[in-house]
């Protein structure tokens, strides 16, 4: 029998602590839509997405109602479009972006991810053209997200792609300068990108995935913070245990939703992504968890240690709660999407250098950071290279999602609204890495890659 304490705890988590399932993401393979005629390919893409995902939003809403737990996003991830673009080399791949956008509107999802290329070892047909077209694609569409994987622990880092992505990020911001440079907020540069990540903007449906799959991303930073606050004065071992227990409960809710969505849509269940994903809403902040652990403000010394503990405990608690775990799994630190991080960045307690250290122990990377509009592409590439090196050497995913605020300087603010939030433009070290970036070539894979 369920006891009343457990029932009231769950209801309190949902009502007061922002417990939710962040996203139910349907991964759809588009490999059978490849066609040398781009118009035919687009037609097939549109038809397949609309056919497979026609009930996604409706099903998500009905599950949400039955279990009383909010499911914030219903989304779609597709095969990296560069693979489709490879078959029609003379055509501009933005046509695919347009098609994805149209399909997203038709089925009612707010984002579709997969305008992507995997170039960690080099450019295959379709890759370069797709990357070139990213700024235009992100400017002309609302709901399409893009990602590029430029390194892996196994392959090393493709420095030609790193150099290119610095320019692409800048151009994406320039083309959407009249809309708070939103283009760059929909573009992620990865090292060790997971093939089954349900979270945007970096979601795509990897080539090793089945035809169609349901992946679920959980959330609940507010629940974790409240649990720590309730515990009062306890030592750090106890804090880790509290986080584990809370993460278990959160993940079980996600697993239930994932199983139910898979059953109702007749689509296999893929993974649950064990994540703490913040939103700009009050009481939904990862930074506030770190502060609850005992920091005056996120970014103070001790932040990296607290984040390491948090990230690890979330995984330990979550892993037993789900039959398959994947995606990014861990704590996210997107600056403009986290009320505590926004405040810490405004007061300059949280700096880009501290964030870089934090990315060595968290699940993603330098995420949703506004940088000065005059930051040269080579400096952006330098930041990407550093971040990718952290991911490559530590066999973890790292990502860079920077938003050059065109026409603005450090200290001013960008405001995207909604879940992308907004926040201050952070200071960037402008010393030039140009010669290093322009050398090109590949950083060889580290010793860690030789595991066989």
């Amino acid at each position: 029998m369920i006891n009343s304490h457990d029932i009231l705890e769950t209801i309190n988590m949902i009502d007061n602590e922002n417990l939710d399932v962040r996203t139910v993401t349907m991964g759809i393979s588009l490999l059978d839509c490849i066609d040398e005629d781009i118009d035919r390919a687009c037609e097939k893409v549109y038809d397949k997405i609309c056919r497979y995902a026609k009930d996604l939003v409706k099903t998500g809403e009905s599950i949400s109602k039955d279990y009383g737990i909010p499911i914030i996003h219903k989304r779609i991830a597709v095969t990296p479009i560069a693979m489709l673009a490879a078959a029609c080399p003379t055509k501009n791949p933005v046509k695919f972006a347009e098609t994805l956008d149209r399909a997203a509107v038709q089925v009612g999802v707010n984002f579709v991810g997969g305008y992507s290329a995997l170039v960690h070892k080099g450019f295959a047909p379709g890759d370069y053209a797709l990357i070139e077209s990213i700024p235009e694609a992100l400017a002309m569409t609302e709901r399409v997200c893009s990602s590029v994987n430029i390194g892996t622990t196994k392959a090393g880092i493709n420095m030609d792609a790193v150099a290119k992505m610095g320019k692409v990020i800048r151009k994406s911001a320039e083309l959407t300068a009249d809309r708070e440079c939103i283009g760059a907020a929909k573009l992620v540069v990865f090292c060790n990108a997971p093939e089954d990540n349900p979270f945007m903007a970096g979601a795509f449906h990897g080539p090793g995935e089945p035809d169609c799959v349901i992946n679920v991303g959980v959330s609940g930073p507010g629940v974790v913070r409240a649990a720590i606050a309730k515990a009062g004065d306890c030592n750090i071992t106890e804090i880790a245990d509290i986080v584990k227990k809370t993460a278990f409960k959160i993940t079980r809710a996600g697993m239930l939703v994932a199983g139910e969505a898979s059953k109702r849509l007749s689509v296999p269940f893929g993974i649950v992504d064990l994540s703490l994903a913040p939103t700009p809403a009050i009481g939904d902040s990862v930074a506030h968890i770190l502060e609850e652990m005992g920091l005056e403000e996120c970014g103070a010394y001790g932040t990296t240690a607290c984040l390491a503990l948090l990230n690890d405990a979330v995984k330990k608690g979550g892993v037993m709660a789900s039959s398959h775990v994947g995606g990014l799994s861990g704590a996210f630190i997107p600056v403009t999407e986290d009320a505590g991080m926004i405040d810490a960045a405004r007061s300059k307690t949280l700096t880009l250098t501290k964030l870089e250290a934090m990315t060595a122990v968290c699940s993603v990377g330098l995420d949703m950071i506004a940088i000065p509009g005059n930051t040269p592409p080579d400096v952006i590439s330098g930041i990407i290279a550093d971040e990718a090196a952290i991911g490559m050497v530590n066999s973890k995913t790292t990502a860079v999602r920077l938003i050059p605020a065109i026409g603005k300087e450090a200290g001013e603010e960008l405001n995207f609204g909604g879940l992308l939030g907004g926040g201050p433009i952070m200071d960037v070290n402008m010393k030039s890495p140009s010669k290093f970036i322009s050398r090109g070539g590949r950083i060889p894979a580290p010793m860690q890659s030789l595991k066989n």
Partner: protein
Amino acid sequence: MNAVITVLGKDDVGILAAVSGECAKVGVNIVEVTQSVLQGMFAMIMFVDISRSTVPFSELADILTEKGEEKGVKIHVMHEDIFNAMHKI
């Protein structure tokens, strides 16, 4: 199939009657009730069998949520699986 109805809010005359009345109207059988009033706050947890319910689950949730608003209390109707999933290994 079982569901859990929780009612939280300021105590008033007839809350239990209102909720159980709505349940009876749509064929929802009440299996167990625990209820207490602490410092004027009304808290009730009701286990109900909805297998013979004449309305779909989502409609039952809407009916009771609306009734709650009318009585000035917060009513949740949730499938029992969510609690089993979160609180049992």
